[in-house]
């Protein structure tokens, strides 16, 4: 423990500093944030460790038994206790497919967000710091793209790239194509946010100081400006993860996303949609619930983060 000028003791180690921070204080005070954080963490663990945690391996044909196909959830008559949420038409355990499906959804979502953050932040930094025609070209491109809904862009890119690839590679490359499509469709938002904050930061004294001592502009951008503009970007990225998961699910639902061999939540819903009329509601309901819970939790977490990082509301 060290005493600073105010006589307040502050812990030194990292974990202690986290627990002592304003952010964590506002987190503790907000039950919605705590609940959604717990839900998100459960999803991440369930999805991340699906191969070890899932009760069954739905993609191991040897473990499937067609006699067990279309079993209702365990608490309903005819349900089997070993299939908590029932099975689909091929006898795959719904709970396990959801865990594996969230894994695919989250991987695609995270990669897409990282992709668009990298592209958006670097173009935004360049545009905001350099100004002039660099700014004009980058922001004009962003404006043109913002005029068109992201989902349409993602659909278009997905369609075009999928056709470009040779037939035998389409299935294995589908996930990467999807990440690219969603990532490209979202970058202008990050570029705009970054550009706005960069233009504010650029005129501050520390940047002028760095310029005076002859630091290379790119180094100034990376080392000095970048850390100061990451706050708003982080908020956007959190909300962007929810959006990316929805976009992924939508594209997969439309049948242009990930292939059925590695189903994501959207693919599961698409598959379940075929059984909507035959009364096997559990095949579609549980993936829907999982998707909505995940998106809601991440959204609420993003909302909280936005309020917590907003100095006006402190």
């Amino acid at each position, binding site marked *: 423990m060290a005493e600073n000028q105010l006589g307040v003791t502050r812990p030194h180690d990292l974990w202690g500093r986290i627990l002592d921070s304003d952010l964590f204080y506002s987190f503790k005070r907000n039950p919605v944030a705590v609940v959604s954080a717990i839900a998100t963490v459960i999803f991440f663990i369930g999805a991340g460790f699906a191969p070890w945690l899932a009760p069954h391996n739905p993609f191991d044909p040897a473990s499937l038994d067609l006699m067990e196909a279309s079993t209702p959830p365990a608490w309903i008559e005819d349900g089997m206790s070993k299939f908590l949420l029932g099975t689909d038409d091929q006898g795959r355990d719904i709970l396990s497919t959801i865990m594996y499906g969230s894994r695919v959804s989250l991987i695609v979502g995270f990669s897409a967000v990282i992709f668009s953050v990298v592209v958006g932040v670097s173009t935004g930094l360049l545009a905001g710091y350099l100004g002039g025609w660099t700014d004009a070209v980058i922001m004009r491109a962003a404006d043109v793209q913002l005029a068109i809904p992201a989902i349409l862009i993602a659909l278009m890119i997905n369609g075009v790239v999928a056709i470009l690839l040779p037939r035998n590679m389409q299935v294995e490359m589908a996930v990467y194509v999807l990440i690219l499509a969603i990532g490209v469709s979202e970058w202008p938002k990050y570029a705009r946010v970054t550009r706005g904050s960069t233009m504010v930061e650029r005129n501050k004294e520390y940047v002028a100081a760095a310029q005076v001592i002859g630091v290379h502009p790119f180094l100034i951008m990376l080392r000095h400006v970048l850390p100061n503009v990451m706050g708003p970007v982080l908020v956007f990225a959190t909300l962007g993860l929810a959006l990316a998961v929805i976009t992924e*699910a939508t594209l997969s639902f439309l049948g242009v996303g990930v292939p059925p061999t590695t189903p994501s939540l959207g693919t599961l819903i698409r598959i379940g949609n075929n059984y909507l009329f035959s009364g096997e509601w559990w095949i579609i309901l549980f993936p829907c619930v999982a998707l909505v819970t995940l998106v809601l939790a991440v959204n609420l977490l993003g909302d909280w983060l936005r309020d917590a990082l907003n100095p006006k509301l402190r």
Partner: protein
Amino acid sequence: MVVVSLVSFMLFNFVGDPVDNMVGQEASYEERVAMRDNLGLNDPFLIQFGRFMGNAMQGEFGISYRIQRPVADLIAERMPATLELVIISAILSVFLGIPMGIYTGIKPNSWLSRSFLVGSLVGVTLPTFVIGILLIYIFAVGLGILPSFGRGEAIQIGWWSTGLLTASGWKAIIMPSVTLALFQMTIIMRLVRSEMLEVMRTDYIKFARARGLPNRTINFGHAFKNTLVPVITIVGLNLGSLIAFSIITETVFQWPGMGFLFIQAVGFADIPVMAAYLVLVAVIFVSINLFVDILYFVVDPRLRVDKTVAAGN
């Protein structure tokens, strides 16, 4: 707009070999070559592109590789269905979203406002297709009162086929339009609400109250009028995204519109259909943006004043 249409066609012009998709595995090399000649795919890129642009100007987009019919016909056939769906949804979202937004803005603490807000959270979170599936499950599978696909009986008026003149058509449009409208409605409601809350704090509203004006005049004449500029921007842009999201809604409800056509075309690499759809959507987007810009001048007197001052100088 030119950018969008150029890019969309240039992309599509380079990609894929539709012949591969059309003919079976057994087709001989000669058959393929003959087919490529028929489709004009062997001409140089610039000629193909010039032909495309020339034809596009006249509303001619070539022949669908898959269905073997002129794309213009296909689109014209499908367009009324999509437009009816989009217009009904737009009306729904604007005429429900704005009043709800005003109400929640004026009375932020009433229980009705709170339930609207909770509902709007659901509207933002639920993906469009999940809403659609939910509605189908409740009203078509569970209660069996609404049809789950198609658009009912359509009546042909000239080239425009409308489903709005038959009872079955109206029944069929309820669920798709609600599905499509819900997301936009919540966006509009939240926007109007936050704008109203902002405006209500300004000095001129306090002054209006001090003058003893009736609440109705303050709320609608003074407050709401000043929220209109951002609201019109967002509503205008969202009309565009209604068209984009109609792809999803149409797929869920098997609505025979352009979006459904587009998704099928994507699946079969049917390039003329895809290009035509994208160009058409680009045209619609540009017209909406133009219309919104013009509307600014109608709504915001400050812009008009600036113009006259500038002209005077």
